[in-house]
């Protein structure tokens, strides 16, 4: 992979001035205005995705960005494989609205599944075109040609010609051929290998440039001064309270958006802390101690029925055994270790914005709308930030920087502080689930109904905080993510009806956090299924196999039983005497019922005297079709398990009637090294199958596996995430 700076420059041909900031040497560089003849960014055009220079070096233009998942390396593997060029000859430019096509938001583990396949098809079309060009040049039949390391050779005449000479520096001007033949997986040399990630050496030595490191000459530093309540209005500002701050440029206020801009970052931080601002009292948030009553009482706008077979409601009372339960899952935050950051430069009526947003094309539209500017005058450039696991504050920080840069007429960098990130980034919405099911006399599932109380909306762009505060044009509806997914269950039940009550609102601005909806819904489904297995006196694994008519799913469960040495006896006897109880639990998911299968077993310990839970080990079996980079997939699974054990055991946003109160790592606790479980991973590779995503699926099964393990150990059902020691002790006392 060559350095990105030079490649970005080549494709900004005719750029007037290329600004290289003083702190960036060879690495990413600052783009300036789009070049004279703008490069195609159409997903229909080969030039949208692929560029080859005279030296035969390939640049891949990806709309999908690397959020720390290794996607940059995986996409380079796909392109190198399909074009038959060395892996090292490929560079990936990501998320630059002037250079890369819009492949949709990088989320939901679709980077490879969709983004990768579009690039593969474009590369296949390019390869096909290059072969026919070479055939003409060498006047031989295309079938007589062979490609290796970017050089095409005629078997007959032994003469050869390189990609560089054929197309170097020129456009393909070619539509992507949906029918162009892709390489037979049997001949893969690069895809399927655990190629070391290209970004890691730079990241462990401090050379890598994160969004938080990006600087422009003459750049100022900005901070936003937050209202005392989410909906509070600005009453007055005592600007003289920051007169003594050296290097202060200006206090900016537009409606309820209040910001400070200074020459130095520390000056901006001090100004933001000392500026005296008076806000109206505002207490629009519900009382957290009555959150679930509030959720249940929220107005329902519509019903989404996600499965409806047979006559479930009627079949329920006819069952031999009937079970009801309610599950809930707390409000959580992304908790990026590096708070959101962005640099914006508003100059001559055009805006350039550098952001770690996972959707720079969508951000471009939002910024243009907020500033009432034509989209063509806005350019967003992606630079890797800290892991965001969904829609965190990146886009909002971009909006902050844009407003401040326009106000002062100079580039402004906004770095969110910890309290901004915890307090103001969008939150995973609270989820409440009622379940009601019945077993027949032989212990088989006959009827299953479930009702999910979910906010209305899907994975649509989330309104920018600065646009809301400044009352500028923005989205009016909420975007909690694809939270309907996995409300239905992968099991076959004669009578089943799963419904989502779509609520008009939810306490804090919602957005998607890793496996949004899939995690909360699978927690309820897979825990309640375990309750039914116990009621049927059946082994949880066997009970699932009995109701699962899906070969690939069954194979995952069988393989899990082997890997985890799962004894298929019924519930093993529990000794209630021991202070430390141990148990294991199981959970399974077919992600969104259409792709990646994951089965897990969790081994846990519970300290009965303190209610503390220690997750000792997780066994994971995953089938995500064709694997591009096995180690990359394992890295993602380990991350999913550890991060979700943290969310399951300890995480919840706390708030009073005015604002979020869990504003630092002391009040929003996450997992530390002593609590991290071991993770044993067994990947099922299917090279001939489509590559499904692996960034999220294994996260969705963690909460249920832990809850089921706790039941196995103590006989206590935990139905409310997080499983804090207080809740565990209370549940044990009740049982």
């Amino acid at each position, binding site marked *: 992979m060559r350095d990105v700076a030079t490649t970005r420059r080549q494709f900004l041909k005719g750029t007037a001035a290329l600004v290289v900031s*003083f*702190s960036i040497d060879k690495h990413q560089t600052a783009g300036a205005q789009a070049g004279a003849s703008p490069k195609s960014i159409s997903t229909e055009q080969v030039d949208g995705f692929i560029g080859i220079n005279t030296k035969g070096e390939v640049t891949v233009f990806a709309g999908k960005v690397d*959020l*720390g*998942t*290794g996607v940059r390396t995986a996409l380079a593997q796909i392109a190198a494989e399909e074009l038959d060029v060395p892996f090292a000859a490929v560079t990936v430019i990501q998320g630059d609205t002037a250079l890369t096509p819009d492949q949709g938001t990088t989320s939901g583990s679709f980077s490879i599944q969709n983004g990768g396949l579009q690039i593969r098809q474009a590369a296949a079309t390019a390869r096909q075109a290059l072969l026919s060009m070479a055939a003409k040049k060498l006047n031989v039949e295309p079938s007589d040609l062979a490609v290796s390391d970017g050089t095409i050779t005629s078997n007959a005449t032994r003469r050869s010609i390189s990609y560089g000479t054929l197309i170097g520096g020129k456009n393909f001007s070619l539509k992507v051929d949906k029918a162009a033949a892709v390489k037979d997986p049997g001949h893969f040399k690069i895809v399927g290998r655990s190629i*070391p*990630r290209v*970004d*890691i*050496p730079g*990241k*462990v*030595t*401090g*050379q*890598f440039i*994160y969004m*938080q*490191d990006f*600087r422009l000459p003459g750049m100022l530093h900005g901070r936003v001064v937050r209202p005392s309540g989410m909906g509070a209005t600005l009453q007055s500002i005592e600007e003289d309270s920051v007169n003594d701050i*050296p*290097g202060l440029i200006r206090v900016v206020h537009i409606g309820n958006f209040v910001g400070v801009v200074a020459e*130095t*970052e*520390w*000056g901006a*931080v*001090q100004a933001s802390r000392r500026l005296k601002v008076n806000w109206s009292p505002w207490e629009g948030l519900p009382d957290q101690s009555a959150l679930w009553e509030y959720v249940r009482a929220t107005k329902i706008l519509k019903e989404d029925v996600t499965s409806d077979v047979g006559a479930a409601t009627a079949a329920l009372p006819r069952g031999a055994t009937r079970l009801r339960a309610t599950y809930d899952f707390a409000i959580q935050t*992304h*908790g*990026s*270790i*590096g*708070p959101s950051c962005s640099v914006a430069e508003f100059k001559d009526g055009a805006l350039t914005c550098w952001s770690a947003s996972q959707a720079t094309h969508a951000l471009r539209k939002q910024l243009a709308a907020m500033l009432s500017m034509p989209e063509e005058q806005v350019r967003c450039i992606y630079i890797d*930030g*800290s*892991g965001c*696991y969904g829609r965190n504050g990146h886009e909002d920080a971009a909006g902050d920087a844009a407003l401040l840069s326009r106000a002062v007429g100079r580039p402004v960098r906004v*770095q969110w*502080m*910890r309290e901004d990130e915890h307090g103001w980034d969008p939150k995973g919405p609270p989820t409440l689930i009622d379940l009601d099911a019945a077993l027949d006399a032989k212990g088989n599932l006959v009827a299953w109904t479930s009702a999910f109380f979910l906010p209305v909306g899907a994975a649509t762009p989330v309104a920018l905080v600065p646009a809301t505060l400044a009352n500028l044009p923005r989205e009016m509806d909420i975007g909690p993510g694809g939270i309907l997914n996995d409300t239905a269950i992968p099991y076959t039940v004669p009578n089943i009806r799963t419904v989502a009550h779509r609520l008009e609102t939810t306490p804090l601005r919602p957005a998607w956090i890793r496996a949004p909806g899939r995690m909360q819904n699978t927690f309820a489904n897979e825990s309640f299924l375990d309750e039914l297995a116990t009621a049927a006196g059946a082994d949880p694994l066997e009970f699932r196999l009995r109701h699962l008519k899906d070969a690939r799913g069954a194979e995952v469960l069988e393989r899990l039983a082997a890997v985890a040495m799962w004894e298929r006896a019924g519930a093993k006897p529990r000794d209630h005497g021991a202070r430390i109880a141990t148990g294991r639990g199981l959970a399974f998911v077919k992600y969104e019922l259409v792709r990646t299968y994951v089965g897990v077993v969790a081994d846990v310990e519970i300290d009965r005297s303190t209610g503390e839970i220690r997750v000792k080990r997780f066994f994971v079996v995953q089938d995500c079709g064709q694997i591009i980079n096995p180690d990359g997939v394992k*890295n*993602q699974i*380990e*991350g999913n*398990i*550890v*991060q979700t054990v943290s969310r399951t055991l300890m995480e919840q946003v706390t708030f009073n009637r005015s604002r979020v109160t869990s504003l*630092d*790592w*002391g009040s929003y606790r*996450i*997992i*530390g*090294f*002593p609590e*991290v479980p*071991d*993770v044993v991973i067994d990947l099922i590779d299917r090279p001939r199958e489509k590559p499904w995503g692996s960034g999220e699926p294994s996260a969705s099964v963690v909460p249920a596996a832990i809850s089921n393990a706790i039941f196995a150990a103590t006989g206590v059902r935990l139905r409310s995430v997080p499983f804090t020691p207080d809740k565990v002790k209370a549940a044990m006392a009740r049982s």
Partner: protein
Amino acid sequence: MTTSIALNVNGRTVRVMVDDPNMPLLYALRNDLGLRGPRFGCGLGQCGACTVHMDGKAVRSCITPLSLVGDRSIVTLEGLGTPEKPHPMQQAFIDEQAVQCGYCINGMIMEAAAFLAKTRNPSDPQIREALASNLCRCGTHLRILRAVKRAAAQT
């Protein structure tokens, strides 16, 4: 009015002009000296992303006032090693691919390097305890533990 403060960073004496001598060392390292190793994560001493070595001790530069540093030697991630000649701990993190987003990795490497310098072949619980106040959100912990054990085996 600005004060000029001399610092010994990565083996070189440098001067920074600052308005507030009590500004956290982190801001001087990043903004005045253009270093990218130490990162801003919380500014509260809670996450470890900003860790540097001060006379060999792992300290959190976000809550270390410049005025407390004096002539003590500061070493940042850049001073530990380069992509061409990485420190054994950095090489171990590359070998174990112990990175996802990588934003916490500065703290992990600097804390672990300081810990290994004073603790010979530590046990797994000892490593976990030494890194217990360094936060990672991506869940890279298992690889980080493997990397530290790998580095411990070599030193």
